[in-house]
C-alpha cells in the first residue's frame, strides 16, 4: 500500500545546478506534506513543509511545489551544493491519520557532483 511514492531512487546533478525531487501521493486525506533529509545512521532532518492550502513554499535554496489536482509535489534545490548529497524523503499527514502520523516515501538519493 504505497500511499506516498518517490519513483526515482537516485538523482545525480552538478554543483550549482537545480535538483528536482518528485513525490506522488494517492490518499486524498493528506493535507500536510514535508521533506526530510537523511544521512546514513542518522535521524531524518526536517527541511521544508507545505500545507494543502498553498501551492508553493520557499525557504532559502529550497522550494516545495504542491499540485493537488495531480497529487504531486516536488522539492527544488537551487543552487545544489555537494553538502546536499543525502537521501531525501517525502512525507505526508492528514486528517484521520493517527494524531498526524507521517507516511513516508521510499526516498531519493541525491548526489551533487563538485
Amino acid at each position: 500500500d504505497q500511499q506516498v511514492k518517490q519513483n526515482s531512487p537516485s538523482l545525480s546533478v552538478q554543483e550549482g545546478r537545480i535538483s528536482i525531487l518528485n513525490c506522488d501521493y494517492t490518499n486524498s486525506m493528506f493535507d500536510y506534506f514535508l521533506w526530510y533529509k537523511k544521512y546514513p545512521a542518522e535521524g531524518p532532518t526536517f527541511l521544508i513543509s507545505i500545507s494543502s492550502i498553498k501551492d508553493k513554499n520557499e525557504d532559502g535554496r529550497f522550494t516545495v511545489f504542491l499540485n493537488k489536482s495531480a497529487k504531486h509535489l516536488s522539492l527544488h534545490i537551487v543552487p545544489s551544493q555537494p553538502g546536499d548529497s543525502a537521501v531525501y524523503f517525502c512525507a505526508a499527514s492528514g486528517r484521520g491519520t493517527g494524531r498526524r502520523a507521517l507516511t513516508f516515501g521510499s526516498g531519493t538519493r541525491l548526489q551533487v557532483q563538485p
Partner: protein
Amino acid sequence: EPEVTQTPSHQVTQMGQEVILRCVPISNHLYFYWYRQILGQKVEFLVSFYNNEISEKSEIFDDQFSVERPDGSNFTLKIRSTKLEDSAMYFCASRELDSLQETQYFGPGTRLLVL
C-alpha cells in the same frame, strides 16, 4: 536549538530479551511518536502518544510493544520479547500542540540488532 535525543545509539540483544529504548522529546512538545526503519525499507509509523495515552498504533505495534512517559521528560518504547525481525533503526519524534504546526522533529535513532 532544541532537539530530540535518544539513548542508546546502538543496542544488541538476544532474541527473546526485553529492550527499552529511550527518548527525550523537545521540551514544549506534547505529541510523541515512534517510527522504525528496517534496513533498505521505508520509515514506518509505529505509535503516536498524547496526553499520557496512545492515540493510534499501526499493525506493527502488537502486544510485544508498549510505550510510556514515566516522567515529565522521557518517552520510552519497550519491546517485551524481541524477535529477529525487530532489528531496525527506531526513531522517536515529537511536535508541538499547535494544530498549525504539523512538523515532527526526529531524534538520531537507536540501532537495534536482535541476534
